[in-house]
């Protein structure tokens, strides 16, 4: 609780041009707003001098220091002489310390007009695009080095990354894919039942999962699970200056950090997509057989009839492309991370958002190409 103001800090006019600030008792956790407002009111243009009287001052804390600090600033602004001689010596020293500025802040914070801002942003965009292209180029040359067996990529890093994005991700992929198959079947069944064509739920789920949904779901899961982890791991290495250490040792960050993760995901994601396709079909079968009373044999007959190899391969191609997108977005965000904890958070978010956006863009492009090619 704040103490009452009475008899702790009092402002008195002693002469026509002189004020006295009497401080007494314990000034602890004091609300200084009120006495300072009184002081401001009393400090009229005819006042030439202010004296501090602190004979009966006992304990004090920062609230008193702040009051004296503000008073001194106010007196400086109004060209009023301030006498602090009667304050305890340590309090005077502390105020002296607060006013002893040894440097002035400068950030170079220039103000830009709107046109200049647009120009600045455009140049930044150009720089960012160049950075991304440079990164992709470095990755391609890293792959080239790897194909010539001239890379420093460590097998152990590759297998660790493969284990992390492969076997360890199967559980969550299975669960989500089964539920997606189940949801697809439910949504389709409602419409198909109105035509008495609920048996085609099997075809709907099979085509949907194999062609695109399996790959998309695995992509979303892996961007949230693995891509973000790549960004966070590499970002933390940036904060700990491990990336600088790699560079000063002359080791390629791409070979050492990006390639193992890229290759691991390129192998793991198509396999996870196959598992996802199958589990999605199982989810559809669960709805068809147990909830819509479609005979088990009949459901799978229709499912296999709807299964087309080209749909399946398009799905796998999607997942292969998604693997590249997720690993590159994760690693790039990590490598570009700012050197602080906040930067790691931003890098992680950026990796997931970028990966999902680019996955959707690439899906659109592949869909148009497949349409044109009649696949």
């Amino acid at each position, binding site marked *: 609780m704040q103490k009452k103001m009475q008899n702790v800090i009092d402002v008195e006019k002693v002469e026509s041009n002189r004020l006295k600030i009497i401080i007494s008792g314990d000034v602890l*956790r004091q609300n200084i707003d009120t006495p300072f407002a009184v002081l401001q009111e009393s400090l009229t243009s005819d006042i030439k001098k202010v004296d501090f009287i602190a004979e009966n001052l006992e304990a004090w*804390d*920062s*609230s008193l*220091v*702040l009051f004296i600090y*503000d008073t001194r600033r106010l007196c400086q602004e109004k060209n009023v002489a301030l006498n602090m001689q009667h304050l305890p010596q340590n309090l005077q*020293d*502390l105020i002296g310390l607060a006013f002893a*500025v040894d440097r002035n802040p400068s950030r170079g914070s220039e103000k830009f007009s709107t046109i200049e801002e647009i120009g600045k942003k455009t140049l930044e965009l150009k720089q960012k695009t160049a950075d991304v292209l440079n990164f992709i180029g470095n990755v391609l040359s890293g792959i080239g080095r790897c194909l010539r067996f001239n890379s420093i990529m460590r097998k152990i890093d590759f297998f660790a990354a493969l284990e992390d994005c492969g076997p360890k991700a199967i559980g969550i992929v299975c669960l989500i894919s089964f539920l997606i198959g189940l949801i697809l079947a439910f949504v389709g069944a409602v419409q198909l039942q109105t035509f008495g064509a609920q048996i085609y739920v099997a075809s709907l789920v099979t085509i949907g999962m194999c062609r695109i949904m399996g790959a998309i779901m695995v992509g979303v899961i892996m961007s949230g699970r693995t891509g973000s982890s790549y960004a966070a791991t590499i970002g933390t290495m940036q904060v700990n200056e491990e990336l600088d250490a790699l560079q000063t040792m002359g080791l390629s960050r791409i070979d050492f950090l990006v390639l193992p993760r890229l290759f691991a995901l390129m192998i793991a994601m198509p396999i996870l997509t196959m598992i996802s396709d199958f589990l999605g079909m199982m989810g559809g079968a669960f709805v068809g057989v147990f909830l819509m009373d479609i005979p088990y044999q009949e459901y799978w007959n229709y499912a296999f009839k709807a299964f087309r190899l080209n749909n399946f391969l398009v799905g796998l191609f999607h997942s292969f492309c998604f693997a590249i997108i997720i690993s590159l977005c994760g690693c790039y965000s990590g490598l570009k991370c700012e050197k602080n904890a906040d930067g790691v958070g931003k890098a992680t978010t950026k990796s997931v958002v970028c990966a999902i956006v680019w996955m959707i863009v690439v899906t659109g492009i592949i869909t148009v190409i497949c349409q044109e090619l009649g696949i």
Partner: protein
Amino acid sequence: MIKDIAIEAKNLTVGYGDYVLLKNADYQVNKGDIFIIMGGSGCGKSSMLRVLTGLIEPLKGTVIINGTDITKASEEEVQKIREKSGILYQSGALFSSMTLAENIMLPLQQYSDYSLSTIRELAELKLALVGLKGFGDFYPSEISGGMKKRAGLARALAMDPDIVYFDEPSAGLDPISSRNLDDLILELNHSLGTTIVVVTHELSSIFAIGNNSIFLDAQSKSILARGNPNDLLKNPPNEEVYKFLTRGGEK
């Protein structure tokens, strides 16, 4: 002359699980002291600091801070002690998502009844005290390592602490910044009368600021010496302390 005791460690054993760093240590820190915990690497200096600040529990013994045994105190009592303690970590440990002023305002908003405008002014005052006047709206990433330490100190001073702990304050600083920080510690100790506990192995700082100390030894897992570091240098009680205080016997 009997002095008030700020910290009293009795029969203190520090370690992690079965791994003991320091056995049966006894020492006292008087109010207003600048107390140095020194010793070679791995002797348990930082672990001792973690025990004093309540971040880890000692394996055995008691730590009495301003009359409260923190090893037996309730969470509320420990919290009260923490409110009256400030810590400056090696890196400054400023929250990177907040400006310097917001870093300092955080404990004040949490534990004081001041109005927001007063809290803002107090943050400005604390920054001014450590020579960072006008840097309130800067983010930690925008300032140098030495300035981060100063800002960390401003945050440590936010609640007018009775005791301020410093973990390797000179680490990573150039000699001038290190000297400036030492001067600042001395000035704040003199002006505010704050008890200061410093964990360091920086000899220049030890002799410049310390008026009381303990020397921890990793081999014997005990306190090998205690007292004013300058007195210890004049009359080293044993070979280890002499070697440490003279950089291995350098004249």
